[in-house]
């Protein structure tokens, strides 16, 4: 990682200096170990309580008609189905818009435009998700969703999905823009030299060359969408629970939404009750799903780096 320090007996330094260096290194090693400790802590706390949860219920309860933790109904299909719906809607918004923005910024925009637009995208990325949740609740659902579908409910999975989509647009845009800008200029020049138009160069040369990075951006964005909590908690509606539903125009429950509503009413959900323990089971499911997506995304990121 670094240039080797000079070696040899004369260059080893005084004992005090070497003691000093050793101490510094010891501190650094100890501090770095913390990150491993944190991961271990997360995994252990999730696994132990999740197993305890599974031990405290009957298996059919996991496939009840809906997710009503206080009534002992812990339907996994309900919460996972809701999460999948929200993620699909979010990706349907964020993938085309984010990708188009990325192509514009990487291939079309003048440097001055980029300099103005990129910080604004970063500000959008920095807006707390609870604010977007409120936005989804007060603007997206009443104005957009109910404007298009008058028979939609007061809170809908669609509004939550659109809100999450807005949240991940900057992520899709910035990661895929980085991937496209990493494509060597010579490829573009070769394409223009053959007489290709800008659109042809962007879509047939740059995009295929950057495809690993773009796929990585989409996977990481999906992982982010699955794990997003506050927008769903505010805009998807089902605070007490929900029957199994995939209807985007009605309220629904997701992995994260179920966790938030359990914890937000946590005064009476404590200790060893199954409802309390189900928090950790949901967290474990969520952890496994996002970890899988992130590892998959990492594979694609690494492939981009190796290409050129």
């Amino acid at each position: 990682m670094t240039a080797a320090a000079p070696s040899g007996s004369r260059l080893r330094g005084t004992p005090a200096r070497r003691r000093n260096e050793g101490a510094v290194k010891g501190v650094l090693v100890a501090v770095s170990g913390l990150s491993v400790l944190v991961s271990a802590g997360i995994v252990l706390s999730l696994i132990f309580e999740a197993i305890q949860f599974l031990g405290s219920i009957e298996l059919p309860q996991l496939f009840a008609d809906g997710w009503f933790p206080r009534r002992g109904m812990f339907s996994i299909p309900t919460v996972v189905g809701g999460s999948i719906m929200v993620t699909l809607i979010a990706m349907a918004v964020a993938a085309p818009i984010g990708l188009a923005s990325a192509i514009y910024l990487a291939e079309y925009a003048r440097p001055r435009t980029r300099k103005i637009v990129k910080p604004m995208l970063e500000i959008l990325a920095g807006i707390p998700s609870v604010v977007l949740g409120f936005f989804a609740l007060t603007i997206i659902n009443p104005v957009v969703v109910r404007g298009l579908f008058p028979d939609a409910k007061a809170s809908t999975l669609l509004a939550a999905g659109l809100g999450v989509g807005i949240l991940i647009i900057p992520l899709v845009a910035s990661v895929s823009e980085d991937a496209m800008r990493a494509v060597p200029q010579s490829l573009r020049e070769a394409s223009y030299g053959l007489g290709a138009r800008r659109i042809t160069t962007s879509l047939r040369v740059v995009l295929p060359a950057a495809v690993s990075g773009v796929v990585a951006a989409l996977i990481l964005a999906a992982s982010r969408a699955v794990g997003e909590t506050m927008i769903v908690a505010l805009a998807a509606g089902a605070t007490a629970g929900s029957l199994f539903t995939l209807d985007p125009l009605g309220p629904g429950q997701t992995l994260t939404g179920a966790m938030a509503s359990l914890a937000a009413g946590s005064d009476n959900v404590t200790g060893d009750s199954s409802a309390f323990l189900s928090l950790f089971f949901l967290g474990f499911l969520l952890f496994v799903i996002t970890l899988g997506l992130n590892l998959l995304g990492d594979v694609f990121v690494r492939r981009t780096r190796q290409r050129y």
Partner: protein
Amino acid sequence: MSTTQAVTSATVARSLRGKRVDVVGYVFTAVLLFSLLFTLAILAVLVGDQLQRGVPVFLERGGDFLTSPLSSRPDRAGVIQGIVGTAMLGVMVALLAFPVGILTAVYLEEYAPANAVTRFIDVNIRNLAGVPSVVYGLLGLAAFVGFFSALGVGNGRNVLSGGLTLAVLILPLVIITSAEAIRAVPNTIREAGYGIGASRWQVVRRLVLPSAAPGILTGTVLALSRALGETAPLILAGAVLGSFSTAGGIDDLFAGPYTALPMIVFDWARKPQEEFRALTSAAILVLLAVTILANAVAIFLRNRYDRTW
């Protein structure tokens, strides 16, 4: 002769220009531009909507909104407890996550041998950065709330648990951005240091860290801004939803109930009364002032001190 030449060059020019207007190209450009403008328009509508609803609250109540405690009565409710909570969380995160994160980055970039253990730590950190924030809340609930309640510090649901949870949450982010900044420092600078007899730690402390400081600072400020806007982990790590009051002693500040600005936004956003809509927007404006300010500082720092070696 000269007419032939003119005709020829005109033909060449026309054929180079293409015979038809590039309709598809124009439409494509328009679609791309529209997507980008659409994104920026959402940002404008979002902020404008909060301003429209929130500013009247400030006009009517003035500083009173900022200095009043939480209340179930909309005309009395204020955000002072959220401001105090968010400030305390911010200080805790800065004190805990920044030194640990930066030192870990120094170890990984400057000291760690390139072996399997280092690679494991590296992969581990990158995966931690992708863990949803709500899962960190579970860690906070299981580890920190449990720890403090076992120690007898209140019921464990205090600002210490919240601060530790948020610090752990942004730790991977701080490590990754700091490591990138350190990696960007060219090796020639280190070699110059070693060349005049500096030890490894001297090189790191006197040469590498000062050169990487702008990048590290930008990354840490962004991470702090992210922490201050987080809600989900705080819900699990025991921040209070709804109003509460404390005796106001210094031990109550640390061991008693606490809340934060995003928690207040979440709580009020769920209330059905119309008056709380306006209050929510006003609270959002306070929250956005904090996070956007932090973001702007980070962007400014990066543009001001951005160096290519």
